[in-house]
């Protein structure tokens, strides 16, 4: 059941990205979303940029090194 659920989640990621890439779509691509998050600042500190870069670093460590 868990495997089916994860397959469903991956399928949904692909489906939303596909919908976002259609002509005239108002849904942002995953790249657009990341870009918006990375522009977030608090008191001129690029919090969004820091969070996303460190999060991706953690993903690599979690799956590839841990």
């Amino acid at each position: 059941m868990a495997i089916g659920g994860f397959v469903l989640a991956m399928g949904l990621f692909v489906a939303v990205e596909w919908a976002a890439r259609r002509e005239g779509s108002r849904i942002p691509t995953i790249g657009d979303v990341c870009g918006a998050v990375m522009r977030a600042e608090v008191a001129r500190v690029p919090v969004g940029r820091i969070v996303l870069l460190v999060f991706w670093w953690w993903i690599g460590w979690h799956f590839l090194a841990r």
Partner: protein
Amino acid sequence: MVEEDVAVPPPRSWDRPAVTVPVFAALAAVGGQFPGFTHQANLFILAVGGVFVWAGLAGWVRQPARPPVRWRAPAAWWWLLPVAVFGVLESATFLLGSSDDYPTFSRLADPLLEREVVRSVGYFSWLTAFWGLVRR
């Protein structure tokens, strides 16, 4: 969306696929040699990831602001659907102890990532996406 006032460095001659793809492939081939749970793998991720985070925060290869986005904020909520499905499943399987019956996503991935080739492909994908974030 408001265009931000960010100093963008001049284009780097080496920041192009003809250079970065072979470099990432070489790094992925090296990283794939290190099995998980080893000092080498931890040091490799720490070093490579550290350089990428530094490059991303220092803005070494940051690209000029893109044209105004065409999407609308409410439509972005569609991304919550896959994130929520994944998050609920991952949390539930984690809380259930990540057993054979209810494995977490990383537990499912571990047997695949034990193979060097798959690990190298994983490294290459991770590095490529990381570079995409660094350049934004």
